[in-house]
């Protein structure tokens, strides 16, 4: 465990990423855009004379919902960009072979790459927490709910990040690895949605585990179910099942992470015994 904590790749990557001002400027622009959005939202809502100059809990919850969807889009579309080049860019810069001849284990290298790549996104999410907390001023959202969303984002980021690292290990070129990772994210969003509706329509009114599964692993569906607890009834009506969506999502994304990390670790170094 001690060796994992002092992961050399992780330390080096973090040093490199936060050495240039680029990363900080990126966070600045992100927070500026989010702030403008929050202030704009509050301004428009409080302009309405019936509001009495403050947000009611319903409006506050709406702001929370909007912010959550913005952050979800951020997680889904920035994570592939941060991770899909992690190994392949070392290959392209001709630094990978030297890294592979060190005595670091493949697991250490992969975990170091994964954590360092998503560290930036986690920093973005954490730095946006004060903005989020504006909703506490007006009520409607509990801190527990906010923490739940942070955990959900973290899980999704790690899972998609693992996919990015896996493609980056398997595929020689960063650009193709990027396409594969973005393709997977789009599949998780759109293809699962389509398949869920497809299987549900095959089983009109009956119980359809396939329809349920495809819906439950869709990040947009989980977000909706967390934001609006009564959406579970909708899913129940569609698939005939009332299993907790979050549990299915949690298990699926944990399994996805484990599988992607396993494949990455196994394929990072060539199998010397293979003899081909």
């Amino acid at each position, binding site marked *: 465990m001690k060796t994992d904590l002092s992961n050399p790749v992780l330390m080096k990557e973090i040093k*490199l990423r936060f050495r*240039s001002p680029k990363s900080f400027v990126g966070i600045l622009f992100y927070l500026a855009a989010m702030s403008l959005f929050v202030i704009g939202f509050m301004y428009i809502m409080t302009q309405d004379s019936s509001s009495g100059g403050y947000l009611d809990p319903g409006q506050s919850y709406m702001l929370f919902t909007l912010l959550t969807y913005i952050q979800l889009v951020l997680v889904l579309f920035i994570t592939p960009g941060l991770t899909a080049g992690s190994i392949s860019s070392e290959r392209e810069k*001709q*630094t990978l*072979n030297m890294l*592979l*001849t060190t*005595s670091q284990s493949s697991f250490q290298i992969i975990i170091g790459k994964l954590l360092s790549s998503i560290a930036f996104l986690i920093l973005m999410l954490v730095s946006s927490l004060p903005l989020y907390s504006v909703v506490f001023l007006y009520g409607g959202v509990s801190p527990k709910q906010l923490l739940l969303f942070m955990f959900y984002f973290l899980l999704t980021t790690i899972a998609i990040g693992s996919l990015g690292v896996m493609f980056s290990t398997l595929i020689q070129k960063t650009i193709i690895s990027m396409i594969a990772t973005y393709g997977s994210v789009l599949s998780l969003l759109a293809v699962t949605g389509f398949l869920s509706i497809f299987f549900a329509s095959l089983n009109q009114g009956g119980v359809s585990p396939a329809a349920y599964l495809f819906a439950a692993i869709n990040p947009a569906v989980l977000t909706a179910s967390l934001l609006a607890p009564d959406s579970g009834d909708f899913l129940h009506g569609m698939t005939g099942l009332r299993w907790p969506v979050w549990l299915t999502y949690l298990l699926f994304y944990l399994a996805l992470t484990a599988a992607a990390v396993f494949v990455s670790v196994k394929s990072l170094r060539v199998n*010397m*015994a293979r003899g081909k």
Partner: protein
Amino acid sequence: MIETRNLTKSYGTFQALQDLNLEIGEGSVFGFVGANGAGKSTTFSILATLLPPTSGDAFVGGHSVRTSPAEVRKLIGYMPDFFGVYDQLKTEEYLDFYAASYGIPAGSRKVLIGQLLDLVNLAEKRDAYVDSLSRGMKQRLCLARSLIHDPKVLILDEPASGLDPRARVEMREIMKRLKEMDKTILISSHILPELAEMCDEIGVIDRGRLLARQPVRDIHSMMKGDRVITVKLNGPPAAAASFFEERPFVSALRRDDETGEVTFSFSGSQSDQEELLAAAAASPLGIRSFSEEETDLEDVFLSLTKGGGV
């Protein structure tokens, strides 16, 4: 220390390496010469556990690259022929990263890095960004990196390629120091004289086959014993021919009456040669010029190893 047994690597029908059998003793420096694509880098990549052999096996310190690559990695320092650096790191941070990668405790890294930078003459560049270093400096930094875990074996793929003459001399000096440190070194180049200066033994590889291997001292002694001297004369060379023929160390004398030249092999030392030429110049033979033919190292090497097969 290093051994390969029938090491073979093929890509489809292309044979990059065929039945390479090699044994390199501890503390010796073995040079691999061959054209680009001859199989040098393939051999090195297999020894560095980066490429699986098609058949056969290679051993470093008794550990097979096939069955215990992790053990092999601990023993070797590998410098690839083409490599990149992490631009935004400083020289010290660069080495610190690799030191950490080999599990060297943080407390002892600073001193170690200082020693290595001294060894490769980069001490004053400790705080410079790696990106700002010249090519020769980067090569030396990469060499320092390959030494960071004090490996017993160094695998250096064309460490002097693309360097200017001065940088080459520096690289050679470092090699000498490494040799003194008792490292077993496997080094490649496509320039034979460069290798002859720092190796104990040289092997010629061509199209995946080891054509010949020979201790460097044999090549050197042959070169020293076989100096060829040509004397140009103003008049007929007959008198000069008999003058040189009677001298010691002279053999295989040839006389060309048309061009007025006498050519012979001379096996004496440098001072014997000076004496001979001084005596000849003092005698009334009508000598226009002396010249020593350049002995081509590669010719000597190929003639030594004529018939191939090791």
